[in-house]
């Protein structure tokens, strides 16, 4: 286990030195701009607007990092051959993968937490007080983080067997598809046999459902989110990540490197 953490720590350090965290500057500017705009709009909707905007930004920035950095975790090491000296250590390949994953998730956690803090700061500066309902935004941020974990896992898996560009496209595509997966269940095209419909229904459960993590409406209006949903989303993410990372580990463990 500790070997995984050694890799993780280094991956985190790499992200920091790669100036990934500079995105926080952009986010800060965005929050300031939105606070100013919101100040000109009528009362009572500040929470709604800021939370919606803030969560959208956190999600989008997080996704960009998750996809692009996630794909690069493995492919960059293979291309640059930095991997060779690392694998010469008493380190199993799956430990290496898991370490990289953990490192990026750690980076994203720090990044997301910083953005959440920025969001709350902006909200406070506009409203001058925070109510209990605002805490729902924290749950929404947590869900975004869960979503990012799954995206990173997928990005890593794809980058183990396709080129970096394809991996980015596949991961992005799967994410977008995952937003509409629920629609598959109720898909009713004309002349569709019961079997095809069943197939689509099954597919709708097996494909990663990214809509699960979308609670922006509830957060914007300060409506509470049930604890069991939090628990189940967490379990869903953990399980799906485990599946995806296992597949990635198997592929990576047999891969001839350059």
């Amino acid at each position, binding site marked *: 286990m500790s*070997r995984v953490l*050694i890799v993780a720590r*280094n991956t985190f*350090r*790499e992200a920091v*030195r*790669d100036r990934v965290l500079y995105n926080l500057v952009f986010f800060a500017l965005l929050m300031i701009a939105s606070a100013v705009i919101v100040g000109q709009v009528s009362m009572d909707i500040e929470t709604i607007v800021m939370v919606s905007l803030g969560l959208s930004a956190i999600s989008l920035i997080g996704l960009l990092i998750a996809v692009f950095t996630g794909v690069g975790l493995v492919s960059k090491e293979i291309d*640059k*051959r*930095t991997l*060779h*000296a*690392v*694998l*010469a*250590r*008493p*380190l*199993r390949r799956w430990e290496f993968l898991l370490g990289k994953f953990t490192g990026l998730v750690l980076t994203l956690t720090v990044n997301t937490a910083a953005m959440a803090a920025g969001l709350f700061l902006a909200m406070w500066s506009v409203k001058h007080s925070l109510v209990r309902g605002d805490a729902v935004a924290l749950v929404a941020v947590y869900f975004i983080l869960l979503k990012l974990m799954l995206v990173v896992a997928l990005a890593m898996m794809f980058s183990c067997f396709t080129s970096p560009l394809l991996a980015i496209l596949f991961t992005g595509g799967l994410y977008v598809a995952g937003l509409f997966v629920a629609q598959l269940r109720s898909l009713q095209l004309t002349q569709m046999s019961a079997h095809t419909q069943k197939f689509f229904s099954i597919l709708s459960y097996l494909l990663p459902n990214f809509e699960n993590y979308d609670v922006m409406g509830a957060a914007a209006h300060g409506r509470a989110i049930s604890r069991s949903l939090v628990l189940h989303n967490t379990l869903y993410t953990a399980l799906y990540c485990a599946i995806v990372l296992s597949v990635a580990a198997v592929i990576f463990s*047999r891969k*001839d*490197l350059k």
Partner: protein
Amino acid sequence: MTAAIETQNLTKQYPHGFLHLKRKTSLENLTMQVEDGEVFGFLGPNGAGKSTTIKLLMGIIFPTAGSAQILGKPVSDVSMHQDIGYLPEQPYFYDYLTAAEVLDYFARFHGFRAAERKERVQKMLRKVGLETAGKIQLRKFSKGMLQRVGLAQAIVHDPKLLILDEPMSGLDPVGRREVRDIILELKNAGKTILFSTHILSDAETLCDRVGVIAGGQLRGVGAPGSIVGVKSLGMEIIFELTGSGAQIEKVRAKATKFGANYRMSVSEAELYAALEELRGASATIISVTQIKPTLEDFFMELVGKDRAQAAAVEVSGQ
């Protein structure tokens, strides 16, 4: 006693050509051993299969057939990396780290505690001549400096066995001398060293044994001297010749200029007759040496043969 490194029929084939239907063999049935405590040189032209073999041993690529063991354990057992140091060819490390950080990172995997790690890292940097560059990021390093870092990370954990892929590449003569000294030092400390090179003089001076690979096959294994055979190619006489005269001109005609002096090659049988002739010409003998075939000759012959064979193979489409 088990050898430090052993391979049996190690083979590597790559899918090749359109739709990956053809197979390209980059290593064929390699069977060899490297004994404990010896320095073994892997010799061969580029593309011969040296790097392939080393990568197979390090688990970077996987064999199509055959097997290999290091320190008694199969190469798939990564735990034995604890006792191995590896220097990749064209090493490249995380360029956002400093030399000290890279060494520290690698050292962590071997379970050293912080204080010991720090000490070792400093020691290694001194040993490879980088003690002033410890805090500089690797992205600013020259190729030669990276090579030194590579060597440092291979020995930072004091392994029993070293596998070095082209350790001299990218170094100037001073650097190469330093690396040679380090290798000798390690050898004297009882380490087993396997290194690949295409610089023959290094192999001749450093290795206990040498394995010659060409075209994916092992062509010969043995002490550098024994490979090329003890067959002498004759004697070389270097002498000084001044003056003129019929006798002197005769000698001059047989010899070739060698700087300010002359050189003459004769068979061993003819040696004394030639010396007499030179005495008659009042030549001053400077040196008489035996001409031994070098590894280079052996090499060139081998490569020549290979190229001819390879051409034939291409045509037949095998």
